[in-house]
């Protein structure tokens, strides 16, 4: 199952947007166009659904509803997210989830959010299996603080949906944090491949599975970082997890190195490979090109396609990127690329195949990269180096 459509209202930069998503999606846009905010809407659903999660903590973790609500929001102050789910190659849908929330409290009351509407439509049963709004008599201020999605008792009929959202993974591996052992305690969210918790996550995987993953990853590393060999997982005497590899040099056996000595690119590549191999749900990849050589980047789109084909069950991979090398791959369809553009009324979101000024460029035979990257470039960027630096 994949997310086939997403609709956002007043979510961060997006006042109103609606876009179709495919199994493999590339989200592109200028800096601060809202790429991370766009995928954050999906992380938000994950944060509601995960264990020890829930609506209030998902909102609080983002700094409250005022940090979520779109600055372009005017009279309508509610924030809503709608997603439609289905199988990638089928036209019909399976589920539709809609959540509409609003700020409540303030002053001496605790600032929170309340649900205006929560709906789950099952296309199999052709009916709503959950249909709540704040005017119903069996709802009160307290019940409206919790989604049914987060409550095992209430989501019996759409448990599949909760599990689906729970399995959304976000990968933005920051090498500096992986190395920093104290970040183990500071990681914002244990579910993300973010910093040190990447190693924690490895520690939790069943040993046999982990070994077989490492075997695969070693094969990739052999090509991409040939001087690293025998990558493996270990725990030190304190029980702290590490990854270790042999760095080959003039000595016949090379020398052992741990993650603290790995290069930024190596760490990101390992994290990235792991997320792709391990996860079964939607994967959100934040700018995978960072720290990686352009030669590796050009391979990524096909590598991702291969992984999607080889794993059982569809897995959706949503990637934010600025990379020309990645988008120059000729196997990327204009349906798979989503362009975010800033306007005074918030950011617009469109599939490249739906944009009149870009479609002809692709139809004329130019690559997606050549066609779309000029549209993500700030208009007067060349003026940047003309600025005076006199203080």
């Amino acid at each position, binding site marked *: 199952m994949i997310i086939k459509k997403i609709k956002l209202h007043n979510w961060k930069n997006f006042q109103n947007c609606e876009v179709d998503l495919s199994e493999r999606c590339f989200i592109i846009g200028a800096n601060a166009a809202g790429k991370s905010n766009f995928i954050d809407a999906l992380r938000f659903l994950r944060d509601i659904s995960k264990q020890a999660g829930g609506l209030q903590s998902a909102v609080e973790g983002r700094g409250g509803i005022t940090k979520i609500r779109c600055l372009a929001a005017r009279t309508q102050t509610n924030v809503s997210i709608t997603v439609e789910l289905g199988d990638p190659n089928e036209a019909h849908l399976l589920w539709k989830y809609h959540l509409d929330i609003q700020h409540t409290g303030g002053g001496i009351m605790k600032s929170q959010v309340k649900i205006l509407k929560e709906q789950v439509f099952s296309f199999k049963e052709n009916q709503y299996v959950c249909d709540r709004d704040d005017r119903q008599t069996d709802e009160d201020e307290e019940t409206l603080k919790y989604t049914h999605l987060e409550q095992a008792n209430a989501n019996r009929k759409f448990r599949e949906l909760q599990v689906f959202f729970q399995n959304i993974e976000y990968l933005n591996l920051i090498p500096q944090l992986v190395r920093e052992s104290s970040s183990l305690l500071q990681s914002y969210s244990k579910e993300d491949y973010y910093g040190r918790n990447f190693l924690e996550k490895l520690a939790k995987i069943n040993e046999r599975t982990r070994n077989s993953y490492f075997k695969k990853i070693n094969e990739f590393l052999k090509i991409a970082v040939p001087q690293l060999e025998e990558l493996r997982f270990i725990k030190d005497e304190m029980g702290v997890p590490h990854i270790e590899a042999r760095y080959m040099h003039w000595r016949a056996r090379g020398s052992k190195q741990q993650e603290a000595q790995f290069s930024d690119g190596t760490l990101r590549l390992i994290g990235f490979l792991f997320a792709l191999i391990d996860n079964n749900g939607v994967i959100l990849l934040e700018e995978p090109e960072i720290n990686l050589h352009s030669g590796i980047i050009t391979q990524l789109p096909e590598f991702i396609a291969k992984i999607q084909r080889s794993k059982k069950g569809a897995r959706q991979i949503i990637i934010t990127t600025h990379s020309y090398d990645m988008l120059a791959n000729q196997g990327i369809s204009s349906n798979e690329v989503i362009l975010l553009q800033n306007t005074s009324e918030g950011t617009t979101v469109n599939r490249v195949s739906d944009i009149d000024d*870009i479609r*002809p460029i692709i139809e*004329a*035979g130019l*690559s997606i990269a050549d066609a779309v990257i000029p549209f993500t470039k700030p208009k007067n960027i060349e003026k940047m180096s003309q600025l005076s630096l006199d203080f």
Partner: protein
Amino acid sequence: MKVYIVGEDDVTCAIIKRILLYCSEGFEIISELPARGGQIKSKINEFNKLAAVYPVILLTDLDATSCAPQLLHHLTPKDKHNQFIFNIAVDEGEAWLMADRYGFAEFAGVDIESIPRARPTRQGGRKALIEMCFAYKPSRFLTHELIKKSKKPDIIKQLTPKEGASKGPEYNTDLLPFIQKKWDIDEASKNSDSLTRMVNRIRSLITSYETALPKP
């Protein structure tokens, strides 16, 4: 009028934009293609196809080929669309800039006589054309010879290439504002027929567009 522009690098793109503005204020540039310059000659057919949708205005350098008509013949597709406006700068965009001799001499802080004069040259066609004449590539003349004579210390630092580099460390930073604000196209056209031709092509594009519009 909506157009796509295709330039080899930042300098050629800036030149196209300035010429468009010089000819009319009614141009709206949809996009600068391709995302990375330097490959435009291999994508001519694609640009030609694109021209069926909106005009494509391309500017390339003459480079190694010594003869513009030959390059034109070699590069332009047989079925060239009439909205595909193909231009070759003889020998480079930089020559067009220096063709505004007064303006460029002032900008670079050099004596006007340091910039060569234009003279009639024969490009293989029957008619001799007026072009700027340099002993070697105009951009190389600019960075390796002309700039040494400059009286402006900043310009010297910005435009003189470091060892192993072909252009100065702030080449585009310096040239783009000149193109955008100071470059006198009227003056430069007197010294470059290839520039005059580009201006004429753009003007006739505007005319053909206006005549094609339904009469009010």
